[in-house]
């Protein structure tokens, strides 16, 4: 349980998500890494070059700062401390509670990510140089996929978890395992 909680700390080092854009004239694709506290280039200057591409269709610049970055780190640290304390002191049933709390937080995080992506892909400058419409005449949106791969005009966009998210998932899995081990031992004691 303790190691599961501590694995969350890797989120301060590794990105948890990545969006990569591929196109023929970008032999090295453009990529954006999402951390709990910042957005970063996959290769140097990728964010600037994504912005340069996207401004033609009226997309806003990728922000330097999101309000989520202010409290995400505290949430993570809070969950680490709680997880470690639970692991050392508390009943195994609390492990499950921690795991469920993480599921809820993770889902909220993904929902928040979706909202940002939606806004990024839909909230377009009305004076954009290039305006594409869908077949039904509605303005084309450029929202990257929440997870998976999608073709957006000349780009193929990939949106997948990165190493930070895998460590997060492993941490949560360890908590669940700890819960079942505790559950089994408790059962044995009762018998």
């Amino acid at each position: 349980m303790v190691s599961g909680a501590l694995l969350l700390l890797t989120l301060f080092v590794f990105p948890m998500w990545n969006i990569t854009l591929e196109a023929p004239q970008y032999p090295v694709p453009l990529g954006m890494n999402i951390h709990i506290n910042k957005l970063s280039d996959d290769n140097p200057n990728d964010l600037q070059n994504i912005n340069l591409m996207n401004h033609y269709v009226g997309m806003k610049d990728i922000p330097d700062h999101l309000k989520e970055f202010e409290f995400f780190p505290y949430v993570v640290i809070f969950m680490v401390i709680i997880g470690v304390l639970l692991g050392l002191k508390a009943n195994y049933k609390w492990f499950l509670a921690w795991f469920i709390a993480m599921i809820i937080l993770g889902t909220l995080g993904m929902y928040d990510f979706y909202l940002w992506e939606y806004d990024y892909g839909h909230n377009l400058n009305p004076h954009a140089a290039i305006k594409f419409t869908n077949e039904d005449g509605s303005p084309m949106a450029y929202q990257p996929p929440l997870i998976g791969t999608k073709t957006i005009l000349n780009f193929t966009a990939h949106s997948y978890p990165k190493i930070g998210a895998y460590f997060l998932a492993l941490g949560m899995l360890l908590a669940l395992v700890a819960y079942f081990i505790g559950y089994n031992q408790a059962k044995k004691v009762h018998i």
Partner: protein
Amino acid sequence: MKTNINIYFATMIIILIFVGCSKKNGGNNAGALTGDAAERVYVKPGEHDEFYAFISGGFSGQLAVYGLPSGRLFKVIPVFSVDGEKAYGFNEETKPMLQTSHGFVPWDDAHHPDLSQTKGEIDGRWCFINGNNTPRIARISLETYETEEIIEIPNSAGNHSSSFVTENTEYVVAGTRFSVPIPQKDMPIKDYKSNFKGAISFIKVDPQKGDMNIEFQVLMPGFNYDLAHPGRGKSHGWVFFTTYNTEEANSLLEVNSSQNDKDFIAAINWQKAEEYIKEGKFKTMPANYAHNVYDDATHTATSKMKKEVRVLDPADCPGLVYFMPTPKSPHGCDVDPSGEYIVGSGKLAASLTVHSFTNMKKAIDEKAFDGDAYGIPILKYEKTIVGEVKQPGLGPLHTEFDGKGNAYTTFFISSEVVKWKLGTWEVIDRKPTYYSVGHLMIPGGNSQKPFGKYLVAMNKITKDRYLPTGPEVTQSAQLYDISGEKMELLLDFPTVGEPHYAAGCPASLLEARSKKFYKLEENKHVYATKAEKDAKVVRKGKEVHIYMTMIRSHFAPDNIEGIKVGDKVFFHVTNLEQDYDVPHGIAMIGANTSELLIMPGQTETFVWEPKQVGVWPFYCTDFCSALHQEMQGYVRVSPGNSNIELSWTLDGESLN
């Protein structure tokens, strides 16, 4: 009847097949190419060549970069001549590169590129090349493929036996073709003999940064110095120069300099020269020569005049120079990879002369001299010579090596390349060139480690080889496969300017080092503008400085007012892009200069002196993006006495 028709058709088909085959065979027999030559020079779309070739442009003054085996042209690097495409010599940053003691010289004749070496092997750092007419040596970076430095050579005229590098790039050597009065003075031309001198310069190269400095000159007798090669391996520490006109004629040289049965190869011991310099045996002469350096951080060149040069007189420095008699006006002077053989190509002789370095040392030790010339000992011909390639062709010029014991020599008059064996001196193969070949190049072929797969022959005459283009036809080079016993002609390819001489190396040595773009944060240009909010226009009397930025797909500012007739307007333009291959250009209507072509992260400047009132446009010249054609702006020019305030905007708003 039906059967008959069938037989008739079958016969026809057989005949057709037969005719088809024999035609194909006939084609093969008639041509010089085997069927798969095309395949062997074909580089698939998107794939890269195996070798880089740096081929000088001769009288174009530039250096062109090609791929081998495809013969495709990648870049023309401006070196000694202005280039409107790249603003070289037109923008304020590179104008100092072409400064000389004669002022701004916009052209030269670029001959012999050579690549820097470490331990006798090509190290892929720099390419050096000589300017013949106004004697200069340039250094080109193989990271940026830009000319970084040019140094003028004093006391020299027709800087031809240049620019060859020693085994560890200790020196680049530069010899004079013309002998001249040293120092220059007003005197009768007919008094040439024994009064004119030929300077041979040793240019020290900084091992880290590559900066060049003329360490010393050796003042040689008034002969013509044609070509050179430094020793390597066992002959490291020596440089060999061919001479002609040892007759010291000053007119009708085609006859008067061709009289002596033998001219010389001059062997200069530069390690000995260093000792004499240390001992203070040199004389410091007043001189005046330009040293021009381009800085990658400031994106700007500076030019400084140097005022003196150290000279050594061989008559005062025993052991510094020896002459090896070599038949008939030798041109090429080529040292094999082991450093033992020195091949003299007597261009008017019937055979090639090969001297042995071991024999030369022995002759020096035994003092086997045949007199002297101006105090320089002449070694006995029969003591240094080790072999002759007999009747190999007519008009031998230049030899390179494949590292497998073979030498390849060009023959100008008989228009062919001849392969022969070192040691046995037997001719192995000969192949025609089209036409009148000058130099040849094997990648690494003048180093200790040749890559003996291809040979490039550089021709002086093209005639009917390509579609005609009026009286002036393309210049041409030819690629031969030399991996087998016999050479095979694979490809003709056109070149920019006269393909005079070349250097080559495996692509793997350079490819990864090629710079992708300049980092904006490292830009130290005095007038750099690193963000749109810093763009501005500043007036200093009649001078106006525009600090402008460019990024897809606009300039900032793009509307400027308050410029007056009679102003001198400096456009200092910074490309804010930080991506590979996103240059922008800028051109101003009526500016008496070229466009600028600015790489990402770089700042360049052009000057515009508006002469007419009006609103004048400028635009991006390099197709940068989908909105390239929208990348433009206006400058309002008011009368000289107008009091319109300076203003600069983007989209109607102030930038600051």
